[in-house]
C-alpha cells in the first residue's frame, strides 16, 4: 500500500504559541480519514500545512511522497473553512477559473451538482447566503478528480438536508485511488463514512487508528471514544 500522507515531527508555532507539536504519522491511500479534535486543537493548521498555505516551523510533511508545492497542489482538492471566493464573480466564471487552472476539474460534474442543489450558475456570490456559498465551494472542490481531498469543516454551516447530500457526494466521488481527510467536531454525522481517525488535542497527536480497531478494541463508537478522550 502506498502512503498518501506522511509527517515527521511536524511542528508549527505562531510566535510562542505552539499550534502543532511533534506530529508524526503515515496514512495509506484510499481511505476516508476523520481529523477530529475540539475547537482550537490544530485541525485547520494541520490542513493548511498540507496545502502549503503555512510553512512548518520544524519537521516535514509529504503528500504522496512530495513536499507541498506545485506538484502537490495539482493533486490536492482543498475546501477551506472560510469563504475564499471573491464576491463579485458569478458561479460560472469561477467554474471557468477552476477549468483553466486544474486539469482534473470536471465542469459537467459541477453543473450537475449545482442543478441538484438549485443554485443558479449566473448568480453572483455576493447575493448568496453563507450556506449557499459553502455549497458552491464544496461543489467546486468535489468536481475535481483529485488524489487527496482536504475538507475543513465541510458540514459546519449547512442545513441537515444539504448535509446528507454533501456526505453522499463525498462518498460517491471517492474512488479507490483517492483519499479524503475531513476535519470536524460533528462526529456522529460522519462517523459512518470514516475508515480511519486522527485525534488531536492542543496540537498533540492523541490517537491514530482505523475505525474498525476502535470498535474492536474499545467496544465503542468513534463518537463515544471522542467524548471520553476529550472529556472536559
Amino acid at each position, binding site marked *: 500500500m502506498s502512503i498518501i500522507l506522511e509527517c515527521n515531527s511536524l511542528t508549527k508555532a*505562531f510566535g510562542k504559541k505552539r499550534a502543532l507539536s511533534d506530529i508524526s504519522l503515515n496514512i495509506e491511500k484510499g481511505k476516508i480519514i476523520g481529523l477530529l479534535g475540539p475547537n482550537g486543537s490544530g485541525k485547520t493548521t494541520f490542513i493548511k500545512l498540507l*496545502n502549503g*498555505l*503555512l*510553512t512548518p516551523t520544524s519537521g516535514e510533511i509529504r503528500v504522496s511522497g512530495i513536499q507541498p508545492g506545485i506538484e502537490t497542489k495539482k493533486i490536492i482538492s*482543498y475546501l*477551506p473553512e472560510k469563504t475564499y*471566493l*471573491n464576491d463579485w464573480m458569478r458561479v460560472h466564471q469561477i467554474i471557468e477559473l477552476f477549468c483553466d487552472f*486544474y486539469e482534473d476539474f470536471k465542469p459537467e460534474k459541477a453543473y450537475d451538482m449545482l442543478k441538484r442543489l438549485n443554485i443558479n450558475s449566473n448568480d453572483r456570490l455576493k447575493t448568496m447566503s453563507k450556506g449557499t456559498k459553502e455549497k458552491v465551494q464544496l461543489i467546486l472542490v468535489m468536481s475535481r478528480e483529485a488524489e487527496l481531498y482536504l475538507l475543513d469543516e465541510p458540514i459546519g454551516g449547512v442545513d441537515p438536508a444539504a448535509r446528507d447530500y454533501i456526505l453522499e457526494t463525498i462518498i460517491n466521488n471517492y474512488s479507490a485511488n483517492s483519499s479524503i481527510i475531513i476535519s470536524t467536531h460533528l462526529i456522529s454525522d460522519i462517523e459512518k463514512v470514516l475508515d480511519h481517525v486522527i485525534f488531536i488535542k492542543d496540537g498533540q497527536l492523541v490517537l491514530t487508528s482505523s475505525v474498525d480497531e476502535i470498535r474492536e478494541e474499545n467496544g465503542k463508537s468513534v463518537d463515544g471514544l471522542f467524548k471520553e478522550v476529550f472529556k472536559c
Partner: protein
Amino acid sequence: MLKKLLKYEVQATSRIILPLYAALISLAIVNRVISSIPILTWHAPQIISMIIYNMILIGMFIMTFVMMIQRFYKNLLSDEGYLMFTLPIKSWMHIASKLLISMMWMVTSGIVALISIFIIAFDIIITKEFLHASVVFIGDFFRYFGPLSGLFIFEILLVGVVGLASMVLMIYASIAIGHLFNRHKILASVGSYIVLTTISQILFIIMAVISSYLPTPRHLSIANDLHGVEPIIHYVLWFVIIFSGILTSGYFILTNYILSKRLNLE
C-alpha cells in the same frame, strides 16, 4: 499559465477602473459642452462640472494606486489567497501578473487623463499649432541626435518602465515583509516601506558617489553645448536604468522568496 493569470487579473481590475475612465471622459465632454454654451450671467454649472471633473481625475489616480496595493494584499494575502495559493502556479507568476497589470493601468490612467484634458481644451487653431510645433520638435530632435535618436528614446522608455516596476515592487516587497510578522502586519508593512526607501536612497547616493570617481565621463563634464553633454545624458540614463533594474530584481526576488518559502496565511 501566466497568460491565464493575466486574463483573470484584467477581469478583476477592469470592472473597477473602466467605469472611472468612462466617467472621466463623460465629465470632460460635459465640461466641454457646458463651457461652449454662452451663459454670461450664471457660472455655477461650469464651476460645478469642473469641480466634479477634477474630483474624478484625482480619484482615478488614487484608485489606480489603491488597486495596485489592494490586488496584491487582498487577492494573495487575505482569504482570497487560500484559492490563489492552492492553484498549481508558481508564486513568481502571481507577482508578475499583478505587477504587469498594475503597470498597464498606471500608463492607461495617464493616457486617459491626457485625452480628457484634450477634450476639454480642444481648439482647432491651438491644436494645429501644437501639432505643428510637435512635428518641428520631433524633426529637430532627430536631426540633433542623428543615428542615436532611437537609442535615446529607448533609454527614456526604459527609465519609465523600470522606474514604474521598481515603485510597484518596492510596495509589494514591503507588504510581503509585513506579512512575516505575527501581529501588526500593516504597521510592519509601512515600516518596511520606509526602511526599503531609505536603503534604496543610501545605495543610490553611494553608487552615484562611486560612479563620479570613475574615469570615463570626467573629461566630458566640461562640455558646454548639447552635443558635448550628450554622452553624459546617456551615461546618467544607463546609470539610472541599471541601478533601478538591480533594485527592482532585488524586490522581486525578496517578494517571491517570502511568498514561496515563508507563506503563512491566517
